[in-house]
């Protein structure tokens, strides 16, 4: 979806996607991540694997989640956002199946709109 709606449609060499693959369901492996990474082959996307939930925990609050881990979330950051001791607050969050507003449920068209909004901001 990100490849199709964002990377294929937004021709901006500055745009960056960081995809962290991990054990959201339990039992996933690094080999699974290597397979899945092929679904988003654009060079602007960097792929990572973690076998732990630490990052998903650290991003819980920035994603606006109370109890759930931040797996299956899409966090959008503006230019200038820096990651210090704690992750920065995203400008926009989309999700799949989380206890977050339903209008923030993942939608490629909406996410592309938000990306373009941030790209246009100076």
């Amino acid at each position, binding site marked *: 979806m990100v490849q*199709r709606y964002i990377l294929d449609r937004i021709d901006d060499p500055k*745009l960056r996607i*960081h995809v962290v693959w991990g054990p959201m369901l339990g039992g996933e492996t*690094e080999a699974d991540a290597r*397979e899945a990474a092929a679904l988003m082959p654009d060079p602007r996307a960097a792929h990572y694997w973690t076998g732990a939930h630490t990052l998903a925990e650290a991003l819980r609050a920035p994603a606006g989640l109370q109890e759930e881990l931040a797996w*299956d979330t899409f*966090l959008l950051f503006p230019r200038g956002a820096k990651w210090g001791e704690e992750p920065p607050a995203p400008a926009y969050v989309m999700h799949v199946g989380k206890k977050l507003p339903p209008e923030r449920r993942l939608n490629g068209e909406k996410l592309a709109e938000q990306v373009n909004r941030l790209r246009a901001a100076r």
Partner: protein
Amino acid sequence: MRGSWKVFAGLAAGLAVWALPLAAQGAREIAPPVRAEGLWQGIILYDPAQVELETTVEIARDAQGNLAGTIDLPSQRMQFHPLRDFKLDGRRISFTFYRDSERRGPNSPFVFEGEISADGRAMEGIFTGFYNEEKGNDRVPFHFERTGEPGDERPAPVHPAVTPLSPAYGELREAFNRDADAVRILILLSPT
């Protein structure tokens, strides 16, 4: 004169022979046949703009002249999975793959029923098989476009590098900050 009559009679007979099958068809419109053989690529719109499954279907004729083919569904880790039960009636087409389903049990059918466009360049219809809990059904649209012929060379899949993260995920933090002049999306996903 006699010759002219013979020509007229011959034409009339020819017209009658030509017109009869049309009349017999009556109300039933039969679309002109089109070629199903080809390399087709497109998407299954499981949940538009949310979950769209990239799909490649290759259809050819086997040694007996019957339609045969395979399907690739990378998101389901399916490659060259056999297609069966082809039916082609004019432009109407259907075909099926069989696969174990958590919901429906082993060797369950997953069915494409659609129509090939008059110019033979597109195929669209309904795919039945992946149950959508929210929508409460398992029928979703698909749309394919003909991108080549059966047996055509396909682009080799690109496998990007995957960086294992250290416990404090410093590799991600560094890359994120290195691109501070860019709009960035951070995504956390299961690979399965």
